[in-house]
């Protein structure tokens, strides 16, 4: 009899444990690694928002820039029986198999930042990513509108586009946006278009050469802030004044670029935000309360930051960088 009571009690306890566990939602995030300040801010944002949410357990895996680590982490998440998986894909291809396994286990999947190429073949609850084409468009639009405020709207200006790593998603998208937007500003003439590989050093070396091979560059569109920061050094070395003699528009909005804008050496930067935390939390809350998911790629709200603010680039009005630099976390 005593044994029976003990057994029943044990069973009850085990059951209550299960109930308690079932209340907690385990959210697992597979991140690609730590490659830049942008990526660190991305990890911190999701970690902070999800990790501090009441009743949620947050599991994080850093894949150290290797796809096989990410796939291993995803399989671990499946074995652990997590409730939600958040994923950023290091490369486009090679995901179908493991993502189908996640689908088979019916674990909701949220894709963030970098998307896999098999999106139409798998199930996912939501996808959040940057809009590279729109960022590219905004870069040129900002320069065009700024020239108008300077009274140079009709003057023919030479534009150089410093591209990112050839073939990367950001390079392809931003170039498309850059070139499409230039058609709306007939006074802009493309004089150079080459790759600076998204790095400061190559941006600097490329600008150094351009300044010698091209007679006049009025506007530099750099597809990320790092290349713009490199180019600024080259422009100074050539005896020109960055931000005045050459208008410089970057992309990403890292803190160093804000500093350059405040110092007057750079004109504007288009935001490509890593702060997906709030959106991901909102999305998981929707999921838990039974709102159906969407296969459409959702873009976060992103701003444009420049020296004085107030320039309308079509849908967004720029903000003065000096006012928000202190809030910048990356």
């Amino acid at each position, binding site marked *: 009899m005593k044994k029976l009571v003990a057994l029943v009690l044990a069973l009850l306890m085990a059951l209550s444990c299960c109930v308690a566990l079932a209340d907690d939602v385990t959210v697992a995030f597979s991140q690609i690694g*730590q*490659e*830049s*300040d942008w*990526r*660190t801010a991305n990890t911190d944002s999701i970690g902070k928002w999800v990790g501090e949410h009441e009743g949620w357990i947050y599991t994080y895996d850093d894949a*150290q820039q290797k796809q096989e680590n990410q796939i291993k982490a995803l399989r671990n998440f499946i074995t652990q029986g997590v409730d939600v998986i958040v994923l950023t894909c290091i490369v486009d291809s090679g995901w179908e198999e493991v993502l189908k396994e996640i689908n088979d286990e019916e674990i909701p999947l949220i894709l963030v930042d970098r998307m896999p190429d098999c999106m139409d073949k798998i199930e996912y609850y939501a996808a959040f990513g940057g809009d590279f084409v729109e960022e590219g468009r905004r870069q040129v639009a900002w320069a065009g509108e700024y020239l108008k405020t300077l009274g140079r709207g009709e003057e023919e200006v030479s534009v150089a586009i410093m*591209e990112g790593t*050839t073939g990367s998603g950001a390079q392809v998208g931003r170039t498309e946006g850059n070139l499409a937007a230039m058609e709306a500003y007939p006074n802009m003439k493309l004089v*150079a*278009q*080459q*790759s600076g*590989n*998204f*790095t*400061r*050093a190559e941006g*600097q*070396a*490329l600008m*150094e*050469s*351009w300044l*010698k*091979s091209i007679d006049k560059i009025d506007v530099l569109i750099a597809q990320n802030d*790092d290349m713009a*920061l*490199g180019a600024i*050094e080259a422009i100074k*070395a*050539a*005896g020109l004044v960055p931000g005045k003699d050459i208008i410089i528009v970057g992309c990403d909005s890292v803190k*160093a670029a804000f*500093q350059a804008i405040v110092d007057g050496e750079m004109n504007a930067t288009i935001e490509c935000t890593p702060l997906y935390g709030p959106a991901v939390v909102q999305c998981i809350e929707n999921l838990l309360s039974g709102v159906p998911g969407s296969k459409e790629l959702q873009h976060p709200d992103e701003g444009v930051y420049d020296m004085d603010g107030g320039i309308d680039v079509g849908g967004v009005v720029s903000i003065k960088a000096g006012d928000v630099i202190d809030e910048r976390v990356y």
Partner: protein
Amino acid sequence: MKKKIDLTQLLRSKVTWAIVAEILVLLVCLIARPDFFSLKIQEDTGMLYGNIIDILNRSSEITIIAMGMTLVIALGGTDLSVGALVAVSGAIALKFMRWDVAEYITPGDYSVKPYALALLVPLGVCTLMGLFNGFLIAKGGMQPIIATLILMVCGRGIAQITTDGRQFTTKFTPFYRIANSSFLAIPMPIIITAVVILLMWLFVRKTAFGTFVEAVGINRNASRLSGINAQMVIFIVFAITGLLSGVSGLIYSSRIMSNDSNNAGLNFEMDAILAVVIGGTSMTGGKFSLVGTAIGSIIIRTIVTLVYYFGIASEATMAFKAMIIAVVIVLQSEPVSNYLSKRARNRAKLATGGVK
């Protein structure tokens, strides 16, 4: 007569062909854009300004590393870790100079208390890492390509950990001067490179060390039997290469005034090996030429500058570089240079009526 024999030898020398290749590449530039060679003094900075200066200036990082790499290759090895060490050096230096730590919270206040530490610590760590490579090879008997692979893979990780995966920016003036100031109108990196080449040349040619390296590279056992401490030679060579990678890393970070653990020194090991090979040092070890290596490095940079200067599309850049390098290496290959020197010899004989 004596002069003609010299000519044949000259045609056999790989350094000659490296120089010929460089001249050919520059000739292409000259024909396409005569203003390529324009040179002037920049008023604001008092520095020489022109493409030739850019080529010399930007080849510094590779040339400095390639000096060490020449000795490593003369020993019959390769050092794959140099690129990662460039990142380590920059990361450590910036660790001392970042402005976002509590002490230097105000941008503009970039004072670094013991500035020497910001230079000596990175160089010291890189030398130690070089010694670690040397230890694995000399004492552990590992193959250099495998031993140095360890630091090649984990070096960037070390750099990332040093800076917590972040990219610091500094505006600390003394550090800025390393790569951006000038001496007698010549940019500082060129001066540093010249000093490194000179010191290395004195070290290997004015002492017996160069001969030791060649002896160990040709036959390690034979050199040991003849009384050379092969282990010590390997230690010294890898330590030098580590130190030079550190110097290169400081120049790289000073140019961009920041650390870049992902991209600093990326593929530098390949460029350095290529510079050594173009310069006429054989991958099998033995005889080496420091001057040849310097020219090899300049050729590589000339090609990059040419690509930028002539606005060659990003997609075609790689193929274009590969094409030029292929031509240079074919020009230097044994059969081609033999054929050319034979023709020169025949012609010489023809002139004196020696060949029927």
